[in-house]
């Protein structure tokens, strides 16, 4: 079996090494990138002349595995209608649009050159289900973020300022659920909703627990840095999707001021603010709704210890799903479409509602513009990443279309002109006046090196430096020639060649192998903490409807190929 490859003469874009489109060779041996001189003459040659070469892309935030994704599949048979493709030589039967099957999820990411993806919200109680789906998703390396922002243990410890205990609990839960990072969704608000309330500012107290969202976020950032986890705290702020919410966003982001990153993974940030498009809204109702991307991005550009992802609206029919239970109820009251909801005891909740982002609705047009503005206003593409919060703002398969809007002012102009309310949209946003076009190098920062660094995985993912994983994507795109926006979309939709850990998985846009996927999780060691262990035991006895023996993600549920990130927080 060939283990040596040399990808020759492509235009290489690699922010890790600072290569900006130079013609270069990428050599691969035993699943790793090596110096070109280190492969033998037997290395298989992949001709990339006239093509763009980048590292495999890294998805920092998508809902692609677990109970809410699957409930979306269950309750939306119409999302699957006419989408199924039969099995082919290298791939199994696959279908679905906004909530594709696990197989289609792996295949479609791989075809676009994505090789690592993070499931953005894992309910700890259902971690087993999340991992079963991750196991069934081919090719891509995956991790999952357990949600902590409405967790009873966390709220109790942080209320009393017990960072060390919160850290011991987080470490236990990451190990128990095989999780990757600390995710926070509508801090306190989802628990408040169990009482018929919500937390719509960072200072609204959570009923019974008497703690505020600001205290939860600050406490979890400190806990995260106490442990020195690879990723920063990853937050979906309060008041998502409401006109005027940008002030809540700024209040949340400001909590990072004065907190320092402490880890051994090269991560310099302490807060990742996700799908910030949904949090950059002005106005006080849907009539005077407007973009506040400038106010938000001015702050993000100044405050160097935070990262963001866009949450770009793709103008499709999609399925919204989030652990922000009260938001989904609010949404179903707005669009009257079917609503699924669940409370996850002691931990979180989730809701699902289908949504149609129509180019004939002013609010959707403005949302579309805000997502692109976030990306175009960044002064540091290493801290601003492209997402659709799949499937919330649109399905991930639309990334190539978003790239074409970001890389071409002409593509944006064409889209704006064909909107039904283009004049009103232009008035409420900044986009029409922006002529910036994202370069391929910046694209590689925003989809590869940047997210990998924020995740603390910059030593293995997101770059083409010797020693890194051999995740490589080659696109039929010649940066030296002039091109039409549609050609960007086409080239990035179906890569000419994709390699995952040294195995070719896509050739000419077709899946040729199910690869060697891995599950990435964090094993954090802390000092023995009998109090926290007793608290966990007591909560299982008193409140949980399952025993601890039926809670932990044991080996059977994990993919056979784990990548464990070791963290030592013992003192």
């Amino acid at each position, binding site marked *: 079996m060939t283990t040596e490859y040399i990808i020759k003469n492509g235009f290489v874009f690699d922010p890790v090494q600072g290569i900006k489109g130079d013609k270069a060779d990428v050599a691969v041996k035993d699943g790793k990138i090596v110096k070109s001189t280190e492969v033998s003459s037997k290395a298989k040659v992949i001709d990339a002349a006239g093509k763009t070469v980048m590292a495999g892309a890294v998805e920092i935030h998508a809902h692609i595995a677990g109970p809410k994704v699957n409930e979306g599949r269950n309750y939306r048979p119409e999302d699957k209608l006419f989408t199924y493709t039969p099995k082919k030589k290298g791939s199994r039967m696959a279908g679905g649009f906004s909530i594709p099957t696990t197989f289609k999820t792996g295949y479609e990411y791989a075809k676009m050159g994505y090789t690592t993806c993070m499931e953005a919200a894992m309910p700890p109680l259902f971690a087993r289900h999340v991992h079963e789906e991750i196991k069934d998703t081919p090719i891509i390396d995956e991790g999952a973020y357990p949600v902590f922002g409405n967790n009873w243990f966390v709220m109790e410890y942080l209320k009393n300022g017990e960072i060390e205990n919160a850290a011991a609990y987080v470490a236990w839960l990451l190990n128990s659920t095989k999780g990757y990072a600390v995710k926070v969704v509508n801090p306190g608000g989802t628990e408040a909703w169990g009482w018929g309330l919500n937390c719509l500012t960072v200072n609204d107290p959570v009923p019974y627990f008497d703690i505020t969202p600001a205290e939860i976020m600050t406490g979890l950032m400190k806990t995260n840095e106490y442990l020195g986890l690879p990723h920063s705290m990853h937050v979906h702020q309060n008041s998502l999707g409401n006109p005027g919410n940008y002030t809540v966003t700024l209040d949340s982001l400001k909590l990072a001021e004065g907190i320092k990153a402490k880890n051994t993974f090269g991560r310099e940030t302490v807060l990742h603010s996700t799908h910030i498009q949904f949090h950059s809204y002005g106005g006080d109702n849907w009539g005077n709704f407007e973009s506040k991307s400038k106010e938000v991005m001015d702050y993000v550009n100044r405050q160097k210890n935070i990262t963001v992802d866009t949450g770009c609206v793709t103008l499709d029919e999609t399925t919204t799903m989030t652990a922000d239970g009260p938001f989904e109820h609010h949404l179903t009251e707005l669009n*009257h479409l079917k609503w699924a909801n669940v409370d996850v005891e002691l931990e979180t909740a989730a809701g699902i509602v*289908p949504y149609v982002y129509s180019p004939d609705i002013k609010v959707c047009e403005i949302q579309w513009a805000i997502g692109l503005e976030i990306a175009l206003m960044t002064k540091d593409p290493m801290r601003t990443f492209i997402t659709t919060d799949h499937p919330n703002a649109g399905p991930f398969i639309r990334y190539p279309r978003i790239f074409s809007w970001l890389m071409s002012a002409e593509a944006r102009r064409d889209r704006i002109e064909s909107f039904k309310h283009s004049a009103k949209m232009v008035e409420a946003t900044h986009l029409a006046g922006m002529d910036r076009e994202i370069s391929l190098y910046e694209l590689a920062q925003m989809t590869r090196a940047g997210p990998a660094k924020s995740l603390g995985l910059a030593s293995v993912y997101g770059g083409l430096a010797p020693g890194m994983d051999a995740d490589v994507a080659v696109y039929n795109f010649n940066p030296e020639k002039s091109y039409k926006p549609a050609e960007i979309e086409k080239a990035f939709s179906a890569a000419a060649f994709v390699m995952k850990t040294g195995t070719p998985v896509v050739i000419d846009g077709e899946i040729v192998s199910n690869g060697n996927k891995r599950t990435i999780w964090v094993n954090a060691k802390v000092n023995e903490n009998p109090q926290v262990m007793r608290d966990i035991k007591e909560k299982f006895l008193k409140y949980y409807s399952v025993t601890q023996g039926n809670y932990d993600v044991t080996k059977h549920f994990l993919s056979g190929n784990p990548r464990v990130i070791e963290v030592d927080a013992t003192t």
Partner: protein
Amino acid sequence: METVTVTMKTQPVLFLEADNISPDAFAGKTAADIASLHAYEGREQTTLGKYFDVSGDAGATAADTRIVVKGDVSRVKYIGMKMSAGEVVIEKDADMYVGAWMQGGKLIAKGSVDAFAGIGMKGGELLIEGNAGNYLGAAYRGDWRGMQGGLIRVKGNAGSDIAYFMNGGTIIVEGDVDVHVATHAEGGRVIIKGNAKSKVGGQMVEGEIVVFGGIDVMMPGFKFVKDEELEIDGTTAKFSLFHGDLGERHPKRKGQIVYGKLYQKI
């Protein structure tokens, strides 16, 4: 208009999925081309020619194409699916999904059809001279966009769950219907010349149901408003108007709350 005749010669062992029997798929093709169009029997992809004799070439466009389906097609699904123009005549009983997602043209089923006829229909005319099965003019499973336009007329009876999630268009059933009529409807009109059973207009937001005969059990969420004289499909008579489903949300238009309307002939 050119006529293509497809005549069943070999019965499928399993059910045959033949969504290619439509003027849109046939347009511009010769009889031989048409015989080589694909169909599915179970999970195997096969061709129409394996089951049907095809005679006559199609017109240049769907609008210029008329299809006559002869023989026993009681095990054939999806005839006329997504057709946008032209004409289809099915001479005997057909299976499920006749005229599903139809957008235009005319489809005449001279016999009876099974469930899901005209689901998600957007336009055109579907005439069923026999009986229709369940989910006539309904929405696809899970979808909130049921029948949106066009006309369905059934000379015989229809099954249960007709006009489920109906948003527009008209369904006329000249005979009786089974339970659940226009559940979740947000528009459109259903006319039942015979009798209805129960669950008529459950969770209905907007739209109209007209029943000429009896209703076994009226939904408790419907409230009598007034008697009105109306002309419905050629018959002038007095009807009692009920508003409902009062348990469901209702939009406001020009200061007035809009209800689903249920008329019953007095």
